[in-house]
């Protein structure tokens, strides 16, 4: 079988994959929300 040939032990963790994607969506959302808030401030440099 393909798995044995490559020596690769495929792990099966769909739940974890779902969790980390939920985390990523949360992260990305708040990150860009923060940039939007920043854009409302006075221009400064």
């Amino acid at each position, binding site marked *: 079988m393909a798995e044995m040939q*490559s*020596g*690769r*032990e*495929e*792990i*099966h*963790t769909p739940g*974890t*994959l779902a969790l*980390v994607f939920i985390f*990523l969506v949360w*992260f*990305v959302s708040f*990150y860009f929300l923060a*940039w939007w808030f*920043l*854009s409302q*401030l*006075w*221009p*400064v*440099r």
Partner: protein
Amino acid sequence: MSLTAPDRIWWKPLGWQERLWVTIAFVWCLVLFLMMPLWGVVGKQNNPVETYRVAPVDFFRIASTFIEKHTVGNERGVPVVRPPAGGEAYLIARIWQWTPILELKRGETYRLHVSSIDLQHGLSIQPLNMNFQVLPGYDYVLTLTPTQVGEYSLICNEYCLIGHHNMTGKIIVKE
């Protein structure tokens, strides 16, 4: 398991799920990194850099001259000062008062020089919530453009001993 010695050969290839996540995570890290220089180019809010060494006594002298020259009033003992539109303005941090009250014109860009003549202070403009560190010995120039008319409070958010929670100031933006 993680509490015991691993297999003798533990350098094993990653499964597809691990590789997928590591790739996505790496791409996200690159996005995080690139946003900063990108905003430097397209964004209007960027961290000020212009700084000059200045002895506190000299900054006080220069700022006091500026205050005298442009005073237009007084509020509760604090001079109200109208700097030239689009010009240099000065703000002194000292325990426990921000001086002077600045009266700015909407849409004009000012070079605001901030320094402390004693301890470290934190310039915090409310309710905008813009925050900068203010150090004695450093003249920090914030090139700032007020965009909305109104009265803004200044508080200090760097602990500066017992009067820290009473250290306030004001910026007034007029049309």
